[in-house]
């Protein structure tokens, strides 16, 4: 038991990307990077069209989506029941189960398990939960070297970079940039390496081969954990996941508590929803399913680390809770007009894009300027909701979280924005004040407008016009026109 558990305090933790400013500042910098915008536009446009085709192939997509949503909602509402059942069945199948309240707990448990296995090197398959808890950094501090084996994670690791997409963490890099990273950072990169994606994949295969064959400990996450059977499911493409969950003697899987599904049968829904939404494939190349340990096949020791790290706080929020249905497909990133322009780093979290804008502030709270800015990092266009395979109403959750951010600030200061809205409320409630305001706006609006647009207002109104412009108000408001003519003209 850690000191934290003993004292009963609870501090969820997820690293904010170091020195990350709030979204508007980070986004402004990202949008100025034309290479980044070109890479993102190219990649997201490609996958959008493919996803639409993969989904259109199934006449019952909406029914699958509804089933996915319903199963997740039921599971979340009865999460204690299903977690206990999962624990019971993992243990019955020869596995061990650990519970971690937060990132610190989870990292300490994993570090202890790696040391107990007598090694200081581990191979790892990409997992959002381990990104979230900053596992690699925590293990490095304990003298344990972590080798990322997913191609994109390897690119990010070799490039001393940060992931910017849930599915394709190196989406912000194009093939030429990836080739340069390999040539610079990979001692065994083949001579004359080209930027053909095939050649780059082959270089990664050769680079990781020996590490896979000799690894003592593998670390994974899981896409699904089946309570009824104690089975874990890892969905992937390259085979690095299979390597990590099969070849090492010890396997440690770090899994968020919301990943549990009630029964084996539920896979028929989620294995239909996930690949089509994420890589636009009918099925991803490899899915590994294992239940505890199987003598003579795969790891001799299996540890499941169940992580809360703020999830129970999100669960307590009836509107925000739906974010816990997320199956990390990243379809919402690929359709988001904001994500497409800013990329993932601007969100300052391992969870970028629309889903990140509602997950990060719930897991970390809205205390920091970066987290408080995330619910506003959206135009509320709703494209994310439309493609979400578990029907998370992201715009609804965003608006809800905006209210929370405003409430959190309400006590502290009188902001110009708040004063404005307060005044607006009074004006809109009174026909007389509204008519006066409209006359005023018409006059002053035309004074500051250029070519019919208002582009810059004096402080404090410049906070609004820094990122937006507006049409100049008309010479006469509708109400004034109506009063004058009664519509007879």
């Amino acid at each position, binding site marked *: *038991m850690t000191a934290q558990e003993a004292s009963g305090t609870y501090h969820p933790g997820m690293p904010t990307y170091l020195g990350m400013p709030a979204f508007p500042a980070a986004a402004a910098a990202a949008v100025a990077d034309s290479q980044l915008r070109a890479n993102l536009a190219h990649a997201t446009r490609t996958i959008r069209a493919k996803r639409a085709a993969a989904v259109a192939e199934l006449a019952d997509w909406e029914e699958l989506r509804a089933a996915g949503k319903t199963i997740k909602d039921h599971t979340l509402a009865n999460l204690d029941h299903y977690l206990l059942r999962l624990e019971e069945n993992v243990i019955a199948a020869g596995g061990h189960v650990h519970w971690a309240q937060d990132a610190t707990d989870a990292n300490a448990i994993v570090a202890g398990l790696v040391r107990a296995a007598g090694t200081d090197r581990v191979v790892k398959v990409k997992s959002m939960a381990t990104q979230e808890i900053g596992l690699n950094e925590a293990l490095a501090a304990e003298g344990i070297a972590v080798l990322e084996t997913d191609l994109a994670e390897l690119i990010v690791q070799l490039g001393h970079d940060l992931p910017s997409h849930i599915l394709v963490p190196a989406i912000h890099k194009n093939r030429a940039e990836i080739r340069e990273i390999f040539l610079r950072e990979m001692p065994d990169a083949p001579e004359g390496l080209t930027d053909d994606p095939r050649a780059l994949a082959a270089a990664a295969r050769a680079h990781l081969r020996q590490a896979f064959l000799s690894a003592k400990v593998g670390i994974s996450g899981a896409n699904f954990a089946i309570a009824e059977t104690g089975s874990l499911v890892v969905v992937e493409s390259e085979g690095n996941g299979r390597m990590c969950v099969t070849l090492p003697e010890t396997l440690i899987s770090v899994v968020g*508590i919301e990943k549990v599904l009630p029964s084996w049968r539920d896979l028929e829904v989620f294995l239909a929803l996930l690949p089509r939404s994420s890589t636009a494939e009918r099925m991803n190349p490899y899915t590994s399913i294992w239940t505890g340990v199987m003598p003579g096949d795969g790891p001799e020791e299996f540890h499941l680390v169940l992580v809360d790290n703020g999830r129970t706080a999100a669960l307590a929020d009836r509107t925000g809770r739906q974010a816990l249905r997320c199956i990390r497909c990243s379809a919402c990133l690929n359709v988001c007009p904001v994500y497409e322009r800013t990329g993932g780093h601007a969100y300052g979290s391992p969870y970028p894009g629309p889903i990140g804008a509602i997950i990060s502030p719930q897991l970390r709270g809205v205390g920091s300027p970066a987290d408080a800015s995330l619910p506003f990092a959206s135009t509320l266009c709703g494209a994310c909701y439309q493609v979400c395979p578990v029907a998370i109403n992201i715009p609804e959750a965003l608006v809800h979280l905006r209210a929370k951010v405003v409430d959190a600030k309400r006590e502290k200061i009188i902001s110009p924005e708040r004063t404005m809205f307060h005044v607006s409320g009074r004006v809109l409630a009174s026909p007389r004040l509204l008519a006066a305001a409209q006359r005023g706006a018409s006059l002053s609006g035309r004074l500051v407008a250029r070519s019919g647009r208002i582009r810059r207002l004096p402080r404090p109104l410049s906070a609004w016009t820094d990122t937006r412009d507006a049409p100049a108000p008309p010479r006469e408001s509708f109400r004034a026109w109506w009063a004058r003519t009664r519509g007879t003209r």
Partner: protein
Amino acid sequence: MTAPGGARDQILARIRAATGPEGSANGRVGPAEKVDEVYATLPRDYLSAHHDPASCDIADLFAERAADYRAVVERVSPAGLAAALARILAERRGRAARPLPFVIPDGLPAEWLAAVPAAVQLTSDTPPLSAAELDMMAGVVTGCAVAIAETGTIILEHGPGSLGQGRRALTLVPDFHLAVVLAAQVAADLPDGLARLNPARPHTLISGPSATSDIELIRVEGVHGPRELHVLLVTAETGAAP
């Protein structure tokens, strides 16, 4: 781990507090039996299969869909299986600079291998080969437990006594995988296919050779798993290969 007041108890307590009193509007049900009852009534209005086996040749569909993911699919008759298998292994041996053995999992029907020429070396996995030894194999030949027509997926069911599918490492480390799929093993879609499996065993779902979309979201075949997947689909009457 399970000390009273430890992480486990605290997480469970927070979940119970967050999901409210039993039977409340947010769906928390209460006692275990009740939860299972409610779960059984959850609406599942989706199709049990997207192609009806009564009106569609699902073996054809499987062949087409597996080939979509760059698996090489060949249809053979039961009588032609051994010859086709022997031809594929002999061709690969002929192409290799240094002839290496193919690993054969326990339980693979001996008659499938009856026509393999003596020049093609076969190796058993008993006693188990090390990962390094598997890396020196020319390839692996397996059967499968189930195939899913809709998605072009082959499912291996591993563990002791698994018929000709071997342990998981066998179809992972070697660079070439030849899988034999019998027509009766082809399920139309996921619901039927998954129901045929034993969840207690490890499973590998395979849809084409290993691949990645990590560079510019463009799919490239061949990363860490076998870079080539060859499927022999055994059906009563041999149709033309798709």
